Each structure stands twice: as structure tokens, then as C-alpha cells.
């Protein structure tokens, strides 16, 4: 069962277009259509709103402004409580803080009426100066959130509204200044990483109806039903038992759906009207009014001895969280926490991070969560340091990287498993490093070069991520497994079923897996690469606990000690005499009727370790010296995610992560106008990779065995996005000496750098010679 490529259990339903997504489920409910009027200004105070014309449109059910809704502080982040997130939102308020911020809610019988009403609402704005440059946010006279307005952070990590600062973070090991002064080689660099849009296929959407007890019941496209319930309850001022959140199939999320951007708005409409209501964001809204990857700046200094031993790592990080704090502080922390473990062997580490507010689209969770940004910066610097030491970048990493058994320093738990050294060796082989490094001249105008990067991440959130799983024997001897885990299209429902089937020794078809319903068992949700590791562990615990109860029950009936029994597909049998058995169907019937012994077990698993997975990525690029265009010829990713539970699902996760990073590396670039409006608000202007761009992606796994993981597994989902951007940048560096520290590496930027080094081919010489 474990290690088999079982097809996704919902694959047929998805590819044959069955109605299993949020909007499909709303179809039969005659739901009101909810739309949001959004701010055209980056920062403004609303003087007045005139909704009288809009309310006259036939079919308009209600129009709500800040005067009509509860004023309860909340955060829309899908983090566990107590969140390190500022509660800086109201459902609606008379101040707008970025272009896209919510101004009014319209609910109408039809799409058309709602759209028309939006056009007729008149808003009088007093336009305020705005903070549009995050490097200039701290100490800016313009404040995004006034200090005396009740913004608070349940887990306060440095909120300081008077300076536009949301959090400060520091990580330290050893004595940095002496480590630097005793280094023979020191390199420094400044890096900028842009925001990135998630571009999930299904935009954000939510559907809400009152159940027979008047409870708000949601079908919603979210990553964390329980956090969605908590934040929605906070925004609406309701007790949790008045809200139920269920997640149907989700058409992709990538972190983008770990925020409650729809639920409180449809919820308030259902509260006010008593009617089912749904909201489906347009693609433009998804680009401009949800969240994007945090924009960051890193200043890095590294030191090494002449023999290439890494001695000092200093990183300063500035993180732009936009108009609302959401995941900002956690992203700053994770940019340290899921990157630094790789370099823990060094004498000294100092990481300082600051999260700032601006009047821009909020940053939010996105695959990689800060570590994608910091890994790009640090891995580029590592190659520059290796170069300064005159050492091959692979040799440099083999020498300095984290290894199995490492402990202490900035590590919160020992590294109990790592096959990183094997990953690097395998990738080196697959890409043909020895023949290709550093560069080949393909023609007068084309170079081919290789570069690599190594990365780590975490598996779940240490001491916070928690999952409960419940397993029950049904009357016919099949199983019901319930969990709060949230399958986003990743296939996690399949993985969890596979894990249960392994313990219960049966095919997956025997298990009915129900997930993601707040009326069922608790789960943190699908973020921080946690589902296989955290919920997977809870599945094992629950299945083992269930088996114990089953054996105890059967042992009594069969007059034998429980530990002499084994569980087979459809029966419990004696280990050394299989002819003595009880069928599960019989047991199911018997325990359901009057035996005071229904066989069900619920167990909880708390993520105490969050072990580091590892990966090595290798890029082979073609560089056009005349245009500066980089074509990615092939990318090789070798992953240590511990035990691979389902190779097919693991491979597509890895390929998807690589593709997302290729876009990040080469051309995904949100562009804003001077007033802070995002103009790359469609797939026509914001370009993600197409099949023609990605060419050849090759993925391999080097398994390790994580002692704390379910059957040895660690995480995978975020790790896989880390290496492509730095590996591509490093290939460019090896080919040309160019240190491009600002993503994306567009042809024009590369061309300028080539010109600066005199490497662009074809100066005007030939033509001029001809003229003499």
C-alpha cells in the first residue's frame, strides 16, 4: 500500500466534470449573488456612501456599508490560535488601505443586478497619501494603521503601528563579528524578490446557507475549515457553534486560499437576509484583492575560511505585508526557520527580520512561505562564496550543508533523517554536471550552463499543527474514516486513505474517507506542508487504536488474547491458526446492536518535530548572448521527503513546484502603476509558464526514513518550489559572472548585465568597418 501509485480516489469525478466544487454545490440553492465594491484608491477615508440609486435596481436584496455591519476586529489568516497575526481588519470600515480594499457589499438575485448596483453606488473619498515603497515604510509619516485604533496581535511579535512595523524577528547562534573577522573570504549582496500570484485554476469562492437550526453553513473553497470558522465567527461576532464550514473539492490553492476573503461577506448576507448566498471572485479580484507572495528584500553577508568552510551567515530581511498583516510575521519567521537549518553547521548565524505595512495588496501564504524568497537569496550567495573560495559549488555544499544527526544551534529538534548528500550526488549525475559545468559555448551567440541549489523546509508547524482522526467499523465491516484534513487537489485524501489501509491491512476501497468539515474531527488545515506528516501520523494513531479495541472485542468472543490476533482484509483471525476467525461484517453488525461497544477510535497527533525535508535542484540553461533571454533547457530535482507514500502524487507535486518557481525566476512580475494599482490583473498581462516554457523537468526521489514520520515520510509540497530560481540564477552566474539579485530574470535585465560586462555579442564593429 505504502509506496504505490494509487490513482487519486476522486480522479474520475474531477476529470469527468462531476459537480463537486463549491459553485457546483450552490447551483441548486437559488443563492443570492454577493459582490464587493472595492476601493480605487491606495489610501482614502470614506466621507459618505450613497446607495439610494443602487438599491432601486430590481433584484437587489441588500447593500451593506460600514454602517450596517458588526465592528469586530479579526484577521483573515488561516493560522492557529493564538495567531502571530495582527487583528487589523473590520468587515468594512470607513478607511480603505489599498486598491481593492472592500467598501460595500451587494447581494442581488442575479449577477446582472449585482453588477449594475455596484456601478450605481456613489462613494465620496478623501484621498490620503499612501505608502507604496516598502523599503520606505518604517518611520514613514504616513501610517497604514493608526496606533490607537485597537489593532492587536494575540501572539504579539513586535506590532508597532506608529512605525508601520508589524513584527520583528531575530535568530542567533554564536558570535557573528568574530566569525566574520576570522573569515578569509567574505561576500555580501542585496536581493529583491517580487510578489507572486498563486494563479490557482479555481478563483476564490464561498457559498453559505442557513441550516434547519439557522446555523450559517458554508461550502467554501478554503485550505483550513477550522480557521475559517474562527475568523468568520470573529468578524461576525458569532459563537463557533453557529457556524459550520465544509470544504468540497478545491481547484488549487497554493496558500492563496488560507485566508477568509469571501466567507465573512457571504455570511453577513445570509445573516441579514436569511437567504443562501454565494460569492465567486473574478480573476481580476483574485489578482488584485486577495493576497500574493510577500515581496522581500534581503541583505546577506557570508564568511568562509580559504578552504571553503562556511563560518558566518548574516541575513537581514525586510518583508512587505501590504495593507493587512495576515501572514506577514509568520512569513518573516519562516524565511529564517525553514532556510537556516541547512547552514546550522556554521560557527555563527544572525538573522534579523522586519515586517512592514504598506498601502499595497496584502501579502499572504504562498507555497514556500518566506523560505522560497530566502532560499533564493542565500543559495545565490553560497555560489558567490564558493566562487570566492575557488571551490566547485557542489563540493562547497557537500562540505557545509546540514547532515543527518546534526543537532543544537538554531535547530529546535535534531535532524533525524537526511539523504541530501545522495540527492546532490544523484542530481549531479542526472544533469551531467561533470561534463557540463560551468559552461559550454553552443554557438557564437549561445551559451549553455548549469547551476544548482539545495534547500530544506519543515513538515507542519512545530507544537501548533495538530490533527484528530476518527475511524469506525461500519455494520457491513467496511470503515469510515473522518478527519479535518483539507485536500486541495493535491491528493491528500488518497494519501491518508492509503496510510489507513496500510495499518488496517485492506484495500483503499474498503475505507470511506470523509474530510474537512468543522462538525467532524479537528485539523489545522492544509498549509505548512503538514497533511501527510501531521494528519498522516494521526491516521496511524487512530488506526492502531481502533485495531486494539477491535482485537480486545474479538479476543473476548474468540476466547484468545488480543495480541494473538491479526487483522486481514475482511476478518480478524488468529495469527497461528487462520481457520479461527471472525468476519468484520459480523463484528460490525454485532457491535452496532446493543453491545455497548461500537468500535470507533479517535486519536489526536500534535506535531512536535516538524522535521526538515531536503532537495537538490539542478538547472541547465541556454543563454542568448544577443538578447539576454534564458531558456531553461532542463531541470532536475532530487527530493528527500523521507518515505514516498504515493510516487505518482509525489512526482506531480514536485513538477508543479518546479513550474511555479520557473515563472517566479524568469517572468512573473506584478506591475503597479504610480498610484499603487496592480495592472497585471489578468492572465494576459501576468504570465505564468506554458508548456512551451518549461521543457524538460525530471524528478527523482532519494528516500530517507524519518523516525517521527508516518512510515518514514516527511513533507514535500513547499520544499519543491525552493531550488529552481536560485539554480537558474547560479547557472547564469557560472556562465557569465553576472550576479542578478532581483527576480524575475527577464531578458532585458540579463541583457543589461551582459552589456555591462561586455559580453553581449555583435557590437557595431562589423557595420562600422563596412563604412570605412
Amino acid at each position, binding site marked *: 500500500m505504502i509506496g504505490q501509485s494509487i490513482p487519486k480516489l476522486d480522479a474520475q469525478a474531477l476529470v469527468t466534470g462531476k459537480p463537486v466544487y463549491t459553485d457546483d454545490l450552490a447551483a441548486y440553492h437559488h443563492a443570492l449573488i454577493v459582490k464587493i465594491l472595492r476601493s480605487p484608491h491606495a489610501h482614502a477615508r470614506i466621507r459618505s456612501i450613497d446607495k439610494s440609486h443602487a438599491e432601486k435596481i430590481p433584484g437587489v436584496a441588500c447593500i451593506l456599508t460600514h454602517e450596517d455591519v458588526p465592528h469586530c476586529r479579526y484577521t483573515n489568516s488561516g493560522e492557529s490560535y493564538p495567531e502571530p497575526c495582527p487583528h487589523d481588519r473590520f468587515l468594512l470600515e470607513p478607511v480603505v488601505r489599498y486598491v481593492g480594499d472592500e467598501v460595500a457589499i451587494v447581494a442581488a438575485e442575479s449577477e446582472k443586478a449585482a453588477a449594475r448596483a455596484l456601478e450605481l453606488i456613489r462613494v465620496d473619498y478623501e484621498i490620503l497619501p499612501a505608502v507604496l515603497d516598502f523599503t520606505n515604510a518604517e518611520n514613514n509619516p504616513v501610517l497604514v494603521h493608526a496606533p490607537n485604533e485597537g489593532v492587536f496581535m494575540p501572539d504579539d511579535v513586535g506590532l508597532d503601528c506608529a512605525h508601520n512595523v508589524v513584527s520583528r524577528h531575530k535568530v542567533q547562534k554564536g558570535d557573528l563579528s568574530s566569525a566574520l573577522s576570522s573569515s578569509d573570504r567574505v561576500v555580501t549582496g542585496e536581493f529583491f524578490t517580487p510578489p507572486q500570484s498563486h494563479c490557482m485554476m479555481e478563483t476564490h469562492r464561498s457559498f453559505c446557507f442557513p441550516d434547519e437550526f439557522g446555523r450559517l453553513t458554508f461550502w467554501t473553497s478554503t485550505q483550513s475549515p477550522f480557521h475559517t470558522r474562527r475568523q468568520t465567527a470573529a468578524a461576525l461576532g458569532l459563537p463557533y457553534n453557529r457556524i459550520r464550514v465544509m470544504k468540497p473539492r478545491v481547484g488549487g490553492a497554493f496558500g492563496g486560499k488560507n485566508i477568509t476573503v469571501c466567507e465573512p461577506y457571504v455570511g453577513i448576507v445570509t445573516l441579514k437576509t436569511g437567504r443562501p448566498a454565494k460569492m465567486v471572485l473574478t480573476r481580476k479580484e483574485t489578482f488584485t484583492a486577495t493576497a500574493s507572495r510577500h515581496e522581500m528584500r534581503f541583505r546577506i553577508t557570508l564568511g568562509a575560511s580559504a578552504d571553503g568552510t562556511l563560518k558566518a551567515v548574516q541575513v537581514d530581511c525586510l518583508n512587505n505585508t501590504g495593507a493587512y498583516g495576515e501572514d506577514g510575521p509568520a512569513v518573516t519567521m519562516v524565511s529564517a526557520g525553514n532556510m537556516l537549518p541547512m547552514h546550522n553547521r556554521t560557527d555563527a548565524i544572525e538573522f534579523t527580520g522586519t515586517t512592514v505595512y504598506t498601502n499595497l495588496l496584502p501579502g499572504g501564504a504562498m507555497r514556500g512561505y518566506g523560505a522560497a524568497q530566502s532560499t533564493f537569496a542565500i543559495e545565490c550567495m553560497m555560489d558567490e562564496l564558493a566562487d570566492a573560495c575557488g571551490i566547485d559549488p557542489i563540493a562547497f555544499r557537500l562540505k557545509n550543508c546540514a547532515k543527518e544527526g546534526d543537532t543544537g544551534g538554531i535547530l529546535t529538534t535534531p535532524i533525524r533523517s537526511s539523504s541530501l548528500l545522495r540527492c546532490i550526488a544523484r542530481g549531479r549525475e542526472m544533469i551531467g554536471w561533470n561534463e557540463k559545468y560551468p559552461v559550454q559555448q553552443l554557438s557564437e551567440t549561445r551559451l549553455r550552463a548549469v547551476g544548482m541549489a539545495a534547500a530544506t523546509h519543515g513538515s507542519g508547524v512545530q507544537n501548533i499543527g495538530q490533527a484528530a482522526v476518527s475511524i469506525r467499523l461500519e455494520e457491513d465491516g467496511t470503515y469510515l474514516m473522518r478527519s479535518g484534513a483539507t485536500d486541495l487537489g493535491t491528493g491528500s485524501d488518497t494519501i491518508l486513505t492509503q496510510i489507513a489501509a496500510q495499518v488496517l491491512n485492506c484495500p483503499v476501497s474498503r475505507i470511506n474517507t470523509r474530510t474537512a468539515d468543522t462538525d467532524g474531527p479537528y485539523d489545522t488545515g492544509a498549509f505548512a506542508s503538514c497533511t501527510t506528516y501531521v494528519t498522516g501520523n494521526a491516521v496511524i494513531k487512530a488506526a492502531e487504536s481502533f485495531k486494539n479495541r477491535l482485537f480486545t472485542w474479538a479476543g473476548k468472543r474468540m476466547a484468545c488474547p488480543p495480541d494473538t490476533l491479526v487483522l486481514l482484509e475482511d476478518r480478524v483471525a488468529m495469527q497461528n491458526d487462520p481457520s479461527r476467525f471472525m468476519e468484520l461484517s459480523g463484528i460490525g453488525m454485532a457491535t452496532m446492536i446493543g453491545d455497548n461497544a461500537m468500535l470507533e477510535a479517535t486519536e489526536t497527533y500534535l506535531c512536535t518535530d516538524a522535521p526538515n525535508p531536503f532537495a537538490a535542484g539542478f538547472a541547465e540553461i541556454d543563454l542568448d548572448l544577443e538578447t539576454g533571454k534564458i531558456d531553461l533547457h532542463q531541470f532536475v530535482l532530487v527530493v528527500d521527503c523521507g518515505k514516498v507514500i504515493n510516487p505518482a502524487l509525489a512526482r506531480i507535486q514536485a513538477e508543479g513546484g518546479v513550474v511555479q518557481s520557473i515563472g517566479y525566476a524568469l517572468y512573473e512580475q506584478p506591475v503597479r502603476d504610480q498610484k499603487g494599482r496592480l495592472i497585471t490583473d489578468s492572465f494576459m498581462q501576468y*504570465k505564468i*509558464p506554458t508548456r512551451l516554457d518549461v521543457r524538460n523537468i525530471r524528478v527523482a526521489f532519494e528516500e530517507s526514513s524519518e523516525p517521527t514520520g508516518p512510515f518514514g515520510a516527511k513533507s514535500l509540497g513547499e520544499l519543491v518550489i525552493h531550488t529552481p530560481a536560485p539554480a537558474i540564477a547560479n547557472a547564469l552566474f557560472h556562465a557569465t559572472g553576472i550576479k542578478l539579485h532581483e527576480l524575475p530574470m527577464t*531578458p*532585458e535585465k540579463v541583457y543589461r548585465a551582459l552589456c555591462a560586462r561586455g559580453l553581449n555579442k555583435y557590437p557595431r564593429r562589423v557595420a562600422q568597418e563596412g563604412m570605412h
Partner: protein
Amino acid sequence: MFSFQDYAAPATVEEALALLDKSRKNRILGGTAWLRMSNLKLHTGIDLKNLGLNSIYEQDGALQIGACCTLRQAETDPLLCGYCGGLVADGIFNIVGVQFRAVAQVGASVFARYGFSDLLPSLLACGASVRLAKAGMMPLEDFLNRPFFRDILLEILLPAQNGIGRSACLRNSAGDFALLNGAVYLDHADCRIAVGARPQCAALARNAGEFVLQNRGSLPVDVLAERAVLLASEELKFGSNMRGSEDYRREMCNVLMRRMLRPLLGKEEGH
């Protein structure tokens, strides 16, 4: 998303014109791939499907492309693929993807005069003409130079000729608009060089073309190409947008032109 209240599929060009002239809120519908990106609220959408404008045919070596042909149809048409070394078909290949090209139409692509168009440089280089319902026949270049006017594009005409051409483009990513594109046509009597996505609409570099014609044979290919390239980037205007700056475009114009011209001139020399 755009919307319209009425839909009409007139049987004659005259009826279509009459409908178009009736209201500024009436519009011709091509494949509507572009229209759907807008929020236009229209009265009548006019579908040209009954006007027999969806084929490509040959008359005495000249080709006529109906306005309602899809980009995909043009790209895979044997006549067009054989015309001037496949110059027109080659340019189309770069537009978005096959599904998209199976919808978007040639007539709309030309009439709308998109700056980024991958079709216009090759059509200009071929010396194409357009036939409009009201304004009649005119060279494509004249059409592009006239201020925008309401009309219906019926056909694109490519003259009988047997030279060869090449097109080239530069994109930040494969699915994006070109940040620069161009096409060159060459035969014994003509050399037409067109550059588009500057980001302004495609235009002919006449001086460069003249220079090639006058100096071919007397200058070595390398030198001839380089000097023509310089002339072209001097006579054409360039601008900046988020895909590239003016300077970069000018310099890339040199690169793309060189890449198109040298093989063409080289081939000629080899004859």
C-alpha cells in the same frame, strides 16, 4: 466580460454594413477572444459567418484570405504554408496556443491593428492589401496609416510573388505578447522589412529595404546586413511599456533583423 443585447448574422455585406452604421454600439463579432476581455455593453453583435469569408484561395498566384478564417486555419493552410517560405504562417505560430488560435480570426486581428500583432509584420512584408466593405481595396500599409474608422474587413490579399521571407520575435515568455517582432521579404526586385510591437503597430523600414536592394552584390553579406539593420533601427520609432524599454527594443531590433536578413541574403548569394 462584454455583452450584447441582439445578435444578427446578416446574409449580405450590405446588410452587415447597414447594421454596423445604425449604431455606434453595434459591433462586428470575430472570434470574440479579444472582445471578451472587455466590459463593453453592445446593442447588436454582428456575426459575419454567412458572408462566405472563411476560406483561403488562390487566383493567378495571388492569395485571398477571408476575414473569418481562424488563425489556426491560416497557420495550417497548405497554400499559406507554401507562400514566401511560409512567412505568414510562421508568425501566427507564436500566438498563445492552438485552442486560442482555433477561435481568433484573421480579419479581426488585422482590423484591430494591435501593436503587438504577430500577423501584421509578415503581412506588411508580403506587401498585402486589404479589401474593406466601405473603403474598398487599399494597401495594408495605407490602412494602418489611416486614423481608425468603422468598416468591415472582408479579405486580405497577398500578391503573386515567389521570393522568400522570414519572421522573428522576442518574448519574455512563450505565452506572452511579443516585446518585438518582425518579418523580412526578399526577391530579385523587392526587399520589405517590417517591425512590430515597438510597442506601436508594425511598420515598414523603407530605407533599410532600399539600401539592401541597391547594395546587394556590391557589399559582403555581413556588412550589407549590418548596415541595413542600423538604418532600420534609426528610421523606426520605439517606445517603452512593461514588457521592455525603448532602448532595449531598439537594440533588439538590430538583433532580430540581423537574424532574419543574414540567412536570406546568404541564401541569395549562394545562388
